[in-house]
């Protein structure tokens, strides 16, 4: 008898969910909203600013080619390599800037912590899949582009369960 009651109660709790709103995020049409504009770091206070750890963004007008990001990455993933760029900046005499291989990068953000000149941040961009390994290597010119990521929905909790909207 108790078995039958148990099964009926289990079925009942499942049937209740027919009235619950859909939780699925319809990904290519809808995209998630994140907090902030990407993970950033303030070297003066030594504390970061909360944000999504996605693809990096490099500000060419601030980078001095000091290689601190590459040194920070050396023991982690060796994803950052310093390459020559065809630009002349007064503060970047060697004309080298970081180039990031996202096939190796683990998105830990410790290179952002290492940068003392507010020039390497992370962004909300996460759509990086590629057909080739070479397509994952982002040159300084590619890194300078600010990604335009659509952000539509976030989790909302209502009377009829959690949903996106």
């Amino acid at each position, binding site marked *: 008898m108790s078995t039958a009651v148990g*099964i009926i109660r289990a079925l009942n709790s499942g049937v209740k969910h027919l009235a619950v709103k859909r*939780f699925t995020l319809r990904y290519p049409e809808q995209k998630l909203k994140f907090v902030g504009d990407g993970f950033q770091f303030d070297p003066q206070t030594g504390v970061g600013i909360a944000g999504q750890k996605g693809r990096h963004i490099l500000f060419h007008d601030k980078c001095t080619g000091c290689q601190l990001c590459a040194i920070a990455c050396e023991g982690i993933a060796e994803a950052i390599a310093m390459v020559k760029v065809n630009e002349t900046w007064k503060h970047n005499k060697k004309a080298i800037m970081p180039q990031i291989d996202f096939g190796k990068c683990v998105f*830990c953000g410790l290179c952002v912590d290492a940068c003392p000149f507010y020039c390497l941040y992370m962004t909300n961009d996460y759509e990086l899949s590629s057909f080739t390994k070479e397509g994952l290597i982002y040159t300084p010119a590619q890194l300078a582009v600010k990604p335009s990521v659509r952000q539509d929905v976030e989790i909302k909790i209502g009377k009829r369960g959690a949903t996106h909207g």
Partner: protein
Amino acid sequence: MTTQLPPGMQLEKVDDRIMTLNVGPQHPGSGHMRLIMKVDGDFIVSCDPDPGYVHRGEEKMAEYRNYIQNIPHLERPVIHDSCNILYPYCLAVEDLLAIEVPERAKYIRVMASELNRCVYTLYWLAIYGIFLGHSTMFMWPMGDRELFIDLLEAMSGARVTHAYFVPGGIRNDIPANFEERCLRQVNYFEKRLKEYEDIFYQNPVLKQRTEGAGILSKIDAIRLGTTGSVLRASGVDFDVRKKEPYDVYESLDFETQVLREGDSYARSRVPYLDMLESCRIIRDALKKMPKSGSVRTKLKPNPKGGNDEAYRRVESGRGSLGMYIVSDSKTEPYRVKISVGSFRNLICMPYLLKGEKLGNMPAVYWSLNYWPVEADR
């Protein structure tokens, strides 16, 4: 077409009565490990776990990296419990470098650790559901897990590999109006957890499959050195958060959950009760947390430990998780030893599966709260 057998694998001679059965590594019920089982009809005669498919040499590699570079490395063994595996590392390094952590950072750490425990336990529960053929129980925890993942993502910026804790505090402060959002989602989640009771834990079908399967007595649980939910399901009251409180666990209000049965049902129920306690801890921590203040003690760029050693342990999703660090006045540690709950719970698998029916294998195997990557390191 005959496939060339890889080195180290050979076809065994078939016995009349006792058959050798390989479960894994490519098997829906095994994960990335192999169980070599000898079965007599439907009964398991012996079981020999064969881990090591994901051995990546974490401990050796930690000797070549400095204390900050080790952070992303040491969280990889359990990526869906990454706050809890970094916790003992940070505590031990803080002991070595003699750093004081700000009060607010301590509360945020406890909160992140409890959120992460829920994320881990819900993933574990989802897989336990699908192992037992209960696919609703796969969908519900996987959906509710996303609520906590969203909270942790707002804090740290990544879905599972947060790299959020550092020696000296945390990497960034929590975003604005996080408290309110956290409270709302935790309250909602607690309501959802009550629904699990009806569909899963009081479900007679599930009870028949798990009750009495793989009973571990109290004496055996202590003798075999199990930890965490396995130990607490056998009636031993041991929780590192209570026995050796770290950070601010002393001041928080929660209880240790202990069951006496020691079977798969009790082992699957203890993490569930722990999740309810986690909700209490999060709410309490949100109330007692200082509203503003520093969250990170500034370190030197390349900190050096003294000629010293440190051992700290915390209660992770799988049991007590310890980190033993030896330093020899260099920027890199001399030795890092991770003592994990998964591997200690793996040891009791041959004892539990002996004499069980083959159909009980998934129920017993996954109730041990075992994550193969962590056991292999």
